[in-house]
């Protein structure tokens, strides 16, 4: 019973993945994790008991009792967690479990399949994460495989209803499809599954989407908190996310011609939140918020557009490459993205559940000024504020560095660069994510500069900011992300939490002929050591990372985030373009053909016909006429032969005569032809001799020609009929002969 085993095991596996799909991201429910193992256990139990011996199924009263209990449990869950959708979905799981323990008919299997579909649907409504996607895809593949087996199961049952009249029952030992599970079957199943999957995907992609509908993003899952981007950040807190491999955002890059491009070679600084005040080992965002929409961007050539899909996060801070000229939300009609003109942070008005799609247009020149950022009021004290107890010590360190570097007193940019080099390149400071406190009585920044001399980017950025301020250079710390994992295959950049980074922006005098002041980005963190640390997080190989990123990219951008814009760009516009080009191409070809024919066939006077052109036209014309005639003749012969009908060789010929013909054809393939002068009996004798001489294999079937010719004589000249047993025997003999001859050939 191989088929039954494979079928039932596949069925339960599919149901298990349906339950997994429902519960994999149902973090709102406290009992969700219980369901998949329960379904697995019940599936195994049912497989070993009721599916082999139906009498071991649950008694009906007990099954009804269990259903009532299940209803009570669902009500209890709803009253405890107030999530009606999940409570109802879990009731479906209870139903499924009870049904699995009962003997099953075809209708029961359909019901179980439907319960699986409903669980997957609810799972799709509850979550749209990539884990959910993976479960759903596995379920879909298993469902396709199972539907194929289910069809064979149903056909077998249908065939059993014919068993009373079919003498030769299929299969031996109760196996309905002997030899079914073979490499060719697996190959065929895979082929059908691939076709089905491709068709399903095509239907999904071609389904029309409505423009600018927020629900196109899917139902939103729970937002996660991301440390380091709050209003207040404790120094060293960023280290928590530096050890996480979770994706923060996925980015596609487009150039000014809207073509997908690789990110620029410059290191990518995804600017996030600006931190201005430092007190008691904590950084604070500015409390004075001045928001405005982006100004009309000036004309610039090197435009870099970033299509960003931000994972669910509870922060309103958005990220982009500075200088940002515009930022717009995608698929959210009323969503607004604002630029804080005081500190250059961009924010959304909507924060919370669900992924967030937005597009940032940046100037590819990172040195350019940020449009819309107010430069007045920058003399404010907060940009120079250094906590009193550490100010003198910091100034001492900074001045010592500047003295050693021989920096001119008024050259703020040189001073800033010198302090950046001191921290980054002097070799006195190391990079680590494992922090310790050497002297708890002093400020952690001072502890980092004097005692510990190792830390992560947040320490470097904090130290540089405060050192700059101590020597009168206005500075602020920026938290964001640096770099990302670029997948060449899908041309998408995945920015993960481990790419979180802190750097410094210093306000220095402007370049000649430009604005009086400008912000300069300074990054004091040793780049090589940081890169090594980032690479260590996650621990998966580069190849697998590329693959998983590609899958994730497809999921994020082309399944969950597949919207009307993307559909237009990916499908409808290229199709329209192709049709337009094809139409133009055919029109051109038609025009060319018409012109050519006109020039070839236009003869102003008969004398022009006697020329090389006339010869070519005449030759091609005759060639065409000849070809046309040949085709017409071939067609007419076919038609004539067909109308005349077969040469008396219809299907109504007696079987004995057909067998004789089959024998003659078969032996003819091996060079034994019957000449017209030879009678069938003589031919049979010659064939017997021929087969006897070919070896032991064919000797066993050497009498077949004689038998067939006997039958032939019997029918052809004796006007008699052979009964079905005799015909079957003759046919088997001929099969044996054919098999022997073919095996000998092989």
């Amino acid at each position, binding site marked *: 019973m191989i088929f039954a085993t494979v079928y039932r095991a596949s069925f339960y596996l599919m149901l298990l993945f349906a339950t997994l799909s429902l519960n994999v991201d149902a973090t709102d429910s406290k009992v969700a994790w219980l369901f998949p193992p329960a379904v697995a256990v019940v599936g195994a139990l049912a497989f070993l008991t009721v599916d082999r011996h139906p009498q071991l199924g649950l008694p009906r009263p007990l099954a009804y009792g269990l259903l009532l209990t299940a209803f009570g449990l669902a009500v209890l869950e709803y009253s405890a967690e107030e999530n009606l959708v999940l409570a109802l979905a879990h009731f479906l799981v209870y139903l499924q479990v009870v049904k699995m323990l009962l003997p099953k008919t075809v209708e029961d299997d*359909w019901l179980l399949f439907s319960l699986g579909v409903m669980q997957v649907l609810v799972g799709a*409504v509850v979550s749209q994460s990539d884990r959910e996607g993976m479960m759903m895809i596995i379920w879909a593949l298993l469902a396709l495989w199972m539907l194929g087996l289910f069809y064979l199961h149903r056909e077998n049952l249908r065939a059993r209803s014919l068993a009373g009249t079919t003498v030769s029952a299929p299969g031996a030992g109760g196996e309905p499809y002997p030899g079914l599970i073979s490499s060719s079957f697996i190959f065929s199943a895979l082929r059908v599954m691939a076709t089905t999957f491709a068709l399903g995907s095509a*239907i*999904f992609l071609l389904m029309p989407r409505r423009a600018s509908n927020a629900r196109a993003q899917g139902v939103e899952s729970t937002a996660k908190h991301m440390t380091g981007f709050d209003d207040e950040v404790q120094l060293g807190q960023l280290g928590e996310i530096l050890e996480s491999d979770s994706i923060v955002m996925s980015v596609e890059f487009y150039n000014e011609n809207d073509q997908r491009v690789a990110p620029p070679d410059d290191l990518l600084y995804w600017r996030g939140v600006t931190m201005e005040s430092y007190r008691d080992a904590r950084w604070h965002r500015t409390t004075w918020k001045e928001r405005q929409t982006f100004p009309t961007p000036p004309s610039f050539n090197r435009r870099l557009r970033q299509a960003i899909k931000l994972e669910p996060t509870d922060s309103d801070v958005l990220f982009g490459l500075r200088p940002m000229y515009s930022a717009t939300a995608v698929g959210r009609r009323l969503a607004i993205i604002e630029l804080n003109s005081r500190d250059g942070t961009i924010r959304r008005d909507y924060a919370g559940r669900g992924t967030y799609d937005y597009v940032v247009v940046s100037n590819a020149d990172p040195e350019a000024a940020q449009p819309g950022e107010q430069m007045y009021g920058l003399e404010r004290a907060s940009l120079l504020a250094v906590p009193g107890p550490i100010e003198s010590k910091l100034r001492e360190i900074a001045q010592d560095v500047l003295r050693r570097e021989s920096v001119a007193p008024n050259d703020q940019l040189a001073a800033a660069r010198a302090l950046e080099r001191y921290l980054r390149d002097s070799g006195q400071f190391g990079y680590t994510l494992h922090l310790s406190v050497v002297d708890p009585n002093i400020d952690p920044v001072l502890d980092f500069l004097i005692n510990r001399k190792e830390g992560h980017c947040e320490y470097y950025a904090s130290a540089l900011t405060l050192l700059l301020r101590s020597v009168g250079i206005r500075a602020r710390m920026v938290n964001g992300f640096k770099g990302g994992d670029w997948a060449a295959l899908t041309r998408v950049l995945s920015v993960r939490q481990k790419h979180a980074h802190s750097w410094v922006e210093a306000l220095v005098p402007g370049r000649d002929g430009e604005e009086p002041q400008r912000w300069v980005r300074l990054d004091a963190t040793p780049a090589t050591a940081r890169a090594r640390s980032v690479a260590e997080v996650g621990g998966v190989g580069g190849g697998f990372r590329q693959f998983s990123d590609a899958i994730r990219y497809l999921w994020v951008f082309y399944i969950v985030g597949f919207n009307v814009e993307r559909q237009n760009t990916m499908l409808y516009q290229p199709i329209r373009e192709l049709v337009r080009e094809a139409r133009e191409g055919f029109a051109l070809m038609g025009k060319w053909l018409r012109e050519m024919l006109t020039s070839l066939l236009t003869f102003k006077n008969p004398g022009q016909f006697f020329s090389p052109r006339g010869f070519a036209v005449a030759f091609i014309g005759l060639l065409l006429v000849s070809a046309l005639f040949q085709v017409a003749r071939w067609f007419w012969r076919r038609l004539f032969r067909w109308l005349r009908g077969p040469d008396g060789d219809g299907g109504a010929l007696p079987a004995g005569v057909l067998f004789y013909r089959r024998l003659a054809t078969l032996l003819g393939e091996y060079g034994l032809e019957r000449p017209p002068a030879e009678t069938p009996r003589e031919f049979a004798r010659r064939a017997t001799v021929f087969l006897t001489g070919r070896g032991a294999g064919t000797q066993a079937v050497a009498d077949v020609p004689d038998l067939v010719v*006997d039958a032939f004589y019997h029918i052809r000249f004796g*006007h*008699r009929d052979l009964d079905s047993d005799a015909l079957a025997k003759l046919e088997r003999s001929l099969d044996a002969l054919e098999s022997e001859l073919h095996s000998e050939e092989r």
Partner: protein
Amino acid sequence: MDARGGLGRLAQWLLRGLWPTQRLIWTWEGVCYVLVSFGLLWAGYSQQINLILLVAGLTAGPIVASFVASASMLRRLNVSRRAPAYVFAGDPLVLDYTLENERTWTAALALFIEDDLAPTDRGHAGTSIPTPRVFFARVGPRDRARLRWEGVAPRRGRYRFRHLELVTRAPFGLLERRVTVEAPAPLIVYPTVGQLTRRWHLMQRQAIETQRGQRHDRSAQQQEYHGLRDYRPGDSPRWIHWRTSARLGKPMIKEFEQENEQDLAILLDPWLPRSKVTPAQRDALEKAIQFAATVCLETCRRSGRRLLLGWTGATPGVCQGPGSVKLLHELLEQLAVMRASTEGTLSTLLDALPPATLREAAIVVVSTRPLNLAEEAERSARLSGGSWRGWVGRVILLDAARGDLNDLVQYAEAAASSVLARRETEPERSGGREQIFGAGAEVQANGQPETSTAETPGVPRP
């Protein structure tokens, strides 16, 4: 070229061209599945939830794939049927179906073959006709499989296998694809035959004796002396061989071949009233035809004896010849397609008979109504004058409606075809060489027992 045939073929071609050879039918599971898929698509579209749209797309995939995969499943398959040319009504109808998979890689899975057997006469409307259907579970690549279907042959008549339908629901059972393969073949269902009882033989002998009494000298000259046998009660004392009886001390009877070699004419009167036909009358007609078929079969067992079958009707018909297999099939075919007649009399049939038959043959008149032989004979032009009186005396008149045939034929449980097979194989058997044909089909010519294969495990061995 036959212009009519060509035009007819052209018309058929047009009809076939317009009538698709492949049909797609939704199964009820498919209909439900499509409805669910549409529901999902609608939900996904109206809510614009991509994951629901994805599930909807994935559920719609099998529907579209069914169109492609079902066509692919039926590709490069050959199907054939082997059917007998004739069968007796009520006998097992055995059909062999072969499915050959010419594909090099993929197996043919879960395929049904449905046959289409239809009567060629309109008179068979409402008759229960079997629908042969077989299921091929799996036929491997480059392999062939055979299945035997066994049903009960329908009532007598001329039938035609029209086409075979290869049916698949691959790959998911949502859509049924049927490919029609033209495989026309005729099938004649002969009337049911049985075995004549002793009473029939007795009745026939008495009739012969009556005839012999009147034409003693001529009959004696025609009789061929066969031998002597013991006296049995009922034997006429006239045929006691006195000399031998005296020598042996017990009565011995002379045996002649005459009984078996005298010509026999069966005159069938398949009459039914024009209206208000009762089931009993229909039954009587069938019995009359079955009796005639049985007598034909028994008579043709031995060659040499001439047999004539005549039937009344608007145009009386006669079929005759020396007893042979060929004649037997002709007569059975006539009886298979014989229709009831509301008009026509025996006298017109008598006029259509050859004079020699009227003069010499043993005549059996089988009717479904009471007949007055004297009146019929008197009306006949052939039996003018007083000759009809002698003729009437040697005719066996049987009225099926009255139940005259009830004790004359015994319908055995064994298939009628076996009776015919015995008839056909007797000469070969007597030839000394064992044959594989017919009822004794178990031993091959070389004397080795047949090796049965797994393909036809359920075939009963004779």
